[in-house]
């Protein structure tokens, strides 16, 4: 009987390819490509690192937590490289420095945005720290249960109360200071 090494290799290759495609799709879904990384490159790097890990220790356990760490470290490395590239002076003057992280903003909006951002930073600084952390995590897009887990809040319901009260307080304060109306 022929040794099925090729079959196993092909099967693992297919598994890693499918997983890499999922990573690539999620990088786009979570807009990490807007931070200066190429999702296809990151997905390929993830596949390579997983292959190497498997080849290095065939008998070792290939846990989900280990796979998650491989993805995290690959994305973080790519983000750091993008950060370094963004910090380097660009030879082409047409390129817009500082736009690596987010969508480009029109010049007329920029002044108003800067003003509003300064107002938001000021209002957030006025909120007590215990309430500020859940609000800022919420504004970064975390769900209530995630906020509860990360901030050490006993339940999602407790996190919801802290977030809703804090947001209301923030909006009122911004309005009072003349920064206009805000939604979430």
């Amino acid at each position, binding site marked *: 009987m022929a040794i099925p090494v090729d079959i196993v290799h092909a099967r693992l290759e297919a598994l890693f390819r499918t997983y890499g495609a999922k990573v690539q799709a999620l990088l786009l879904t979570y807009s990490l490509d807007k931070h200066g990384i190429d999702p296809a490159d990151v997905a390929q790097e993830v596949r390579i690192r997983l292959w190497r890990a498997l080849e290095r220790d065939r008998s070792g356990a290939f846990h989900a*937590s280990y796979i998650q*760490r491989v993805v995290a470290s690959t994305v973080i490395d790519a983000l750091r490289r993008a950060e370094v590239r963004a910090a380097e002076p660009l030879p082409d003057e047409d390129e817009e420095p500082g736009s690596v992280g987010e969508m480009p903003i029109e010049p007329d909006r920029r002044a108003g945005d800067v003003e509003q951002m300064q107002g938001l930073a000021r209002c957030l600084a006025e909120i007590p720290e215990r309430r500020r952390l859940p609000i800022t995590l919420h504004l970064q897009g975390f769900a209530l249960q995630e906020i509860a887990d990360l901030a050490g809040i006993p339940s999602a319901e407790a996190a919801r109360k802290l977030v809703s009260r804090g947001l209301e307080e923030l909006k009122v304060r911004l309005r009072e200071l003349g920064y*206009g*109306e805000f939604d979430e």
Partner: protein
Amino acid sequence: MNKTNLSDLYRRLTANRATLTLAADDLAAAADGSLQADRREAVAEALAASPAEARLVRMLRELKSESEALAANVARTERHTAHRRHQRDAGRVAAGRRFGGTARWAAALAACLVAVVGVWTQRHLQMSHSAPQSTHVVARSDVIFSTRDTIFDSGMDKSKHAARSDNDHLFRGSFSDG
């Protein structure tokens, strides 16, 4: 009046001044919900201040089920490989045993043959050496017989002489007396 989206504004604010401060382990633990208590506050604050890291943690949360599926599939494939390898090794051992039995029989037969040939050769050599020995024995026997002959000869001579002399003596005496 248009309302500004607070989340968008906050992410733009933090994107402008964010630096990547968290290690991969912290990010994976935050996504997994397994952060150590002493790291929780620092990690939460870093995530609140960094849109890239916050997005990565949220992405990892969504990826968790895929990672678990991949781990399970890799383990299954590896187990299958190990099982096939084990079967192959077991087959080799079984074939080795079968061949080993035949080999043992052949070796035993060869040993018997060698022993037979050895014995036969030794016997043959002994036989070839035994010819001069028998000659020697015959010669010795001759010596013994000749000795005996000598003994007999001397004995016979003695008795002959004695008898003759006795007879002679007796006859001679009787004759002289009578």
